[in-house]
């Protein structure tokens, strides 16, 4: 007694998609395995990102601290304090990060810890520059982050160079602050060091490394600001009081954007 419409209804009513219970359990368990693999990686990655963020924050604090150096006596005290802070970072966050990387290909996590590493290199190189007056090299950075043969955070050369490129910005600030305090000799010395580092960085053939090329342009701008400041100090140093000189040096016609880029 069936008529046409119910027939169509009946055929439509057959489920288009099979219920999930009928799925092959092997496939389901295979996907569960995949899920575990993905989760393990993602979780570790997230932990590394968090550690990297902590390192960035602490490194920034150290940099701020180092900019508070006013004279030789405060320098020793502040450098020691900064060294202590960095050592804490090395012993805590970096150590935990190194443990996350044991048995892993660290390149898989490099993107997660790269920001922290660059900031850390910036801080530690700035400290060494202030204290010893030289540029920390890759080997020295690596040795600070090496706990044992198996336990270490690898520092790729490229990341090191990015950190050093950031250091030029700090040297620029240091130099301008020195102008403000009237420490003419420090201004000229810092300018010379900054020029040397910039020249060394620009001498590298970078191929396709875009990020470093960008930072080099910023570094070049920092250098120009500092050079202009030196020029002003040299030319007008004898004419105006030291307090005004700083303003003149950084706000000269060649540096109209100084205030915007200060940070």
């Amino acid at each position, binding site marked *: 007694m069936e008529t046409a419409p119910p*027939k*169509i209804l*009946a*055929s*439509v009513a*057959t489920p*288009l*998609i*099979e219920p*999930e219970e009928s*799925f*092959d359990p092997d*496939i*389901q368990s*295979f*996907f*569960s395995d*995949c*899920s575990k*693999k*993905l*989760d393990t990686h*993602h979780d570790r990655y997230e932990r590394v990102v968090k550690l990297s963020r902590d390192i960035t924050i602490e490194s920034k604090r150290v940099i701020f601290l180092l900019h508070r150096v006013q004279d030789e006596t405060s320098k020793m005290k502040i450098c020691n304090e900064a060294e202590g802070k960095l050592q804490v970072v090395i012993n805590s966050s970096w150590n935990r990060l190194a443990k996350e990387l044991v048995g892993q*290909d660290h*390149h*898989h996590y*490099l993107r997660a810890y790269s920001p922290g590493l660059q900031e850390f290199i910036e801080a530690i190189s700035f400290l060494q520059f202030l204290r010893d007056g030289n*540029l920390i*090299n*890759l080997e020295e950075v690596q040795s600070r982050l090496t706990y044992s043969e198996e336990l270490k955070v690898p520092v790729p*050369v*490229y990341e*090191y*160079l990015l950190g050093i490129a950031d250091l030029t910005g700090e040297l620029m600030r240091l130099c301008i602050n020195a102008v403000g305090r009237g420490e003419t000799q420090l201004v000229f010395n810092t300018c010379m060091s900054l020029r*040397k*580092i910039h020249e*060394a*960085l620009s*001498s*590298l*053939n*970078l*191929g*396709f*490394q875009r990020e470093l090329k960008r930072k080099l342009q910023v570094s070049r701008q920092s250098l120009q600001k500092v050079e202009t400041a030196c020029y002003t100090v040299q030319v007008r140093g004898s004419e105006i009081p030291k307090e005004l000189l700083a303003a003149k040096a950084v706000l000269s016609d060649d540096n109209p954007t100084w205030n915007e880029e200060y940070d």
Partner: protein
Amino acid sequence: MDLATVFAQYQNLLDADQDLREEIRLIVRELDTTGREVSLILQQIHQEDGLNQIGELCTRAKLTLSKANEQFSKLASKIPPNQYFRFNDHWRYVMQRYSFLCALIFFLESEKLALHSDVGKLLEVSIKEEDGFHLDVEDYLSGLLQLASELSRLAVNSVTAGNYDLPIRISRFVSELNGGFRLLNLKNDSLRKRFDALKYDVKKIEEVVYDLSIRGLRSRSLTITK
């Protein structure tokens, strides 16, 4: 040591990296070409009588794939131990494409889901991270998602070619795949974006099945209503 000497060392490191990347790029380009050849062969399944030649097409595809096997082993030999993820950006896309092609061959031959290990076997590439050069699980999964959209196309074309059974089986296969993917916790990355597109493939296949069902062309549903 003066700055120039130290930086010359850095330059050496950078150069070594660039040189290796250059070599990798060349091999990846070869792999890309071979992948296109395999793809070209498999595209014939969408043609009018393509479904009748599946056996032959798969044999030819696998024959071409053997070229890729050699290229993969050449590529693997270039990668220093424990540095797979330093360079894998160069071949990630190609790897996903191959993963898709293998999963497609596997489906056409058996109508089953190619597991991670099945794809690894076809590519002759390890699936374990410990082995260095390997088929990463993310790339494998990405290949499966490409497979789903290819099958949604095949479902449409097989109806045109007069084959009304295959879309039903594809529908079951893809919904099972969809169920599997829903077990994964995906991050907000490219795999996640691909997965978000899966529902459109599912929908398209459902529409084909619906069209067949409502017109009584679906052989299985006919037997049910009888």
